[in-house]
């Protein structure tokens, strides 16, 4: 794509840690201060990704506690109060600490490289928005040792469970969510400013790689809904500490209002966690199918349609609160409508694969698993969208199965696909092939063993968020727990792969994958600390 390669500064090398260590004279600080004060998009991207990975393991540890307790019926290991804290913290940490920062990390690393920008538009803000996160999650994790325990009301923190009946640590939870929210908002502003203003000369909007497009739309979603989340938790704060009654029926408030406000944020939030995944997969599949992406423009429009529709479907999370029939129908149909643009995407991926010259490198394995398994999650979403059926499915393990299918083999697999795809660019080395393949196959088997039986347990009536269950669910739960342990353990392999890849391995050339076409592959591998200081010339995308 680029007709002009920027002057290369460093040849490939294999120093420890990421490309940030590229031995250039520009890193003004050493040691800890370097990471604390860095304004370099690559270093901040690395910080985000490392943070996200550590949160993934902490949240995963909580999931292991949950699965260990549910291995057998009866109360074995933890008290029910602590079990509730585990489900809550698992959800909060995975959503706000693992998945969202991972996407922001990938955006930090790759958006400037893919649009030919020297850095993010607001580098110092970028540093600030990252360092808010460790503070936020240190506060959140600290609630575990506070008197009364950590938040125990589920990641959706419905009032009055999270206000009237909440543990005293809830105020800390609110503060940490405020900080994480500010971090996301600042990150989104930065990404929008970068994409809209710093594209290389000649790159029109419709020339941008899809990862950039999906992130642009995601950033707009963040700008639109994170303030609503901030508003909701501020109202909770006022209800808890200052005697207001936003959600307190005693004072004329309405707990159902909480659910409306929360899901007005919450539904776009689930698209915030999947749209960048669509972007990653849309970049990887053409590379390894050695064909151009089928229906580029329709992919962009489908992403935008999903984003707009996401504001009109929130009450499908609330079919049983007593909505009038008209509202049930409206939200049922609007939800089903989302299947149309999503279907456009899935068909475009499949059509891109059609008669392609496909090879199965690790990023492609994860991307293909994403397409298949995310679609399963999409179908169970359609089942849940049927309002009368949802009366049965609501708050059962069927819902748990659904959203884990879209989040784990959906969002998380896409993140891993992206990491495997770009690791050669970051480190200058290919990830170890055999180990990556082991990681993929163990993950894909583990994920399905974990979450597929949940469908059956849920359809049979097993409620979610309980530490004990009726005997007839015992077999499904044992399979789920075994799958969970397998999936959890196999992620250690991922760490091994990444660490080995940073330290050494097969050298990667500038264009690490044969079919890769985007701008980042015109840079040497590993990418030097500063890139595109002279903007590259970009030829328009052929259409």
């Amino acid at each position, binding site marked *: 794509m680029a007709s002009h390669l920027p002057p290369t500064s460093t040849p490939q090398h294999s120093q420890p840690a990421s490309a940030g260590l590229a031995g250039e004279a520009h890193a003004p600080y050493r040691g800890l201060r370097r990471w604390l004060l860095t304004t370099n998009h690559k270093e901040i991207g690395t910080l985000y990704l490392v943070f996200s990975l550590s949160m993934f393991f902490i949240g995963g540890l909580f999931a292991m506690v949950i699965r260990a307790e549910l291995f057998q019926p009866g109360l074995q290991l933890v008290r029910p109060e602590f079990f509730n804290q585990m489900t809550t913290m698992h959800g909060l940490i995975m959503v706000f600490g693992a998945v969202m920062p991972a996407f922001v990390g990938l955006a930090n690393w790759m958006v400037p490289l893919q649009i030919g920008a020297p850095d993010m538009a607001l580098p110092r803000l970028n540093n600030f928005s990252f360092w808010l996160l460790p503070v936020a999650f240190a506060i959140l994790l600290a609630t575990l040792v506070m008197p009364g325990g950590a938040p125990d009301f589920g990641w959706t923190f419905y009032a009055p469970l999270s206000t009237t009946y909440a543990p005293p640590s809830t105020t800390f939870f609110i503060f940490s969510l405020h900080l994480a929210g500010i971090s996301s908002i600042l990150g989104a*502003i930065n990404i929008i400013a970068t994409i809209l203003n710093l594209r290389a000369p000649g790159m029109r909007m419709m020339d941008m790689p899809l990862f950039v497009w999906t992130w642009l739309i995601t950033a707009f979603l963040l700008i639109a809904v*994170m303030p609503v989340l901030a508003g909701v938790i501020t109202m909770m704060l006022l209800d808890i500490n200052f005697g207001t009654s936003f959600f307190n029926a005693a004072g004329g408030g309405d707990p159902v209002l909480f659910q409306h406000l929360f899901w007005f944020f919450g539904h776009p939030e689930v698209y915030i966690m999947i749209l960048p995944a669509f972007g990653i997969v849309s970049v990887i599949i053409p590379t390894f199918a050695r064909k151009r992406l089928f229906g580029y423009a329709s992919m962009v429009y489908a992403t935008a349609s999903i984003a707009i529709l996401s504001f009109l479907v929130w009450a499908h999370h609330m079919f049983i609160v007593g909505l009038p029939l008209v509202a049930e129908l409206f939200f049922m149909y609007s939800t089903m409508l989302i299947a149309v643009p999503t279907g456009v995407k899935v068909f475009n991926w499949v059509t891109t694969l059609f008669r392609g010259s496909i090879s199965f490198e690790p990023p492609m394995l994860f991307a293909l698993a994403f397409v298949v398994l995310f679609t399963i999650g999409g179908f169970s979403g359609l089942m849940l969208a049927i309002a009368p059926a949802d009366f049965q499915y609501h708050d059962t393990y069927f819902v748990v199965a659904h959203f884990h299918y879209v989040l784990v083999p959906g969002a998380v697999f896409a993140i891993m696909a992206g990491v495997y795809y770009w690791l050669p660019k970051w480190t200058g080395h290919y990830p170890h092939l055999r180990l990556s393949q082991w990681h993929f196959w163990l993950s894909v088997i583990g994920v399905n063993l974990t979450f597929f039986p949940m469908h059956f347990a849920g359809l049979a009536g097993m409620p979610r968020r309980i530490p004990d269950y009726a005997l007839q669910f015992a077999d499904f739960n044992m399979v789920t727990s075994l799958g969970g342990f397998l999936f959890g353990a196999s992620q250690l392999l991922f760490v091994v792969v990444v660490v080995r890849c940073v330290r050494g391995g097969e050298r990667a050339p500038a264009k690490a994958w044969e079919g890769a076409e985007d701008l980042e592959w015109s840079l040497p591998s590993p990418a030097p600390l500063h890139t595109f*200081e002279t903007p590259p010339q970009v030829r328009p995308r052929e259409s």
Partner: protein
Amino acid sequence: MAEPFERDPRRQGVRRTVARTVAVLGGMFVFAFALVPLYDAFCQVTGLNGKTAGQAQSLVHAGVDTSRTVTVQFVTRGSPGLPWRLETDTRQLRVHPGERREVHFRFRNQGAEASRARAVPSVSPSEASLHLRKLSCFCFQEQRLAAGERLEAPLVFQLTPDLPADVRTVTLVYTLYPVAASGARAERDAVGEGDRA
């Protein structure tokens, strides 16, 4: 890099983008709070959240529809941390739409101290709430009872004849909530003493 970038016209662009996104951001934050009164107004117009009017309404004189009988049920609930009882002898009534009926409720403070509480109504199904007119209700104001004091209070209501035909049973729930100076915090502390300990 910083020097040429400072003079870069793209810097103006970045500044403009940031100003616009921050404006949207502020707008959405305000919008979140604006949704609270909007939601209340919406529910008041449509009756969707099952709340009844907060003050006395007048009788609708449109005749009594004796061809139709609707069951009206009364449910009373206390709150943890509030040593009050709210009871009624009339658990269920058969009512013709348009008819004016009266039901008596008894309050009793079983605690050792005077306290204040409020009975908050909720109607199910919610579409009935617009057709339930209260001519008089103890729920319009809060009650204050001395230790051991009893109070009998009436509810006078009418179901308007235009009640949707598919509504055959209307359930009216009164939940007693403590009225405390510091709202939810005090209520939770009360809960904490009762349940969490």
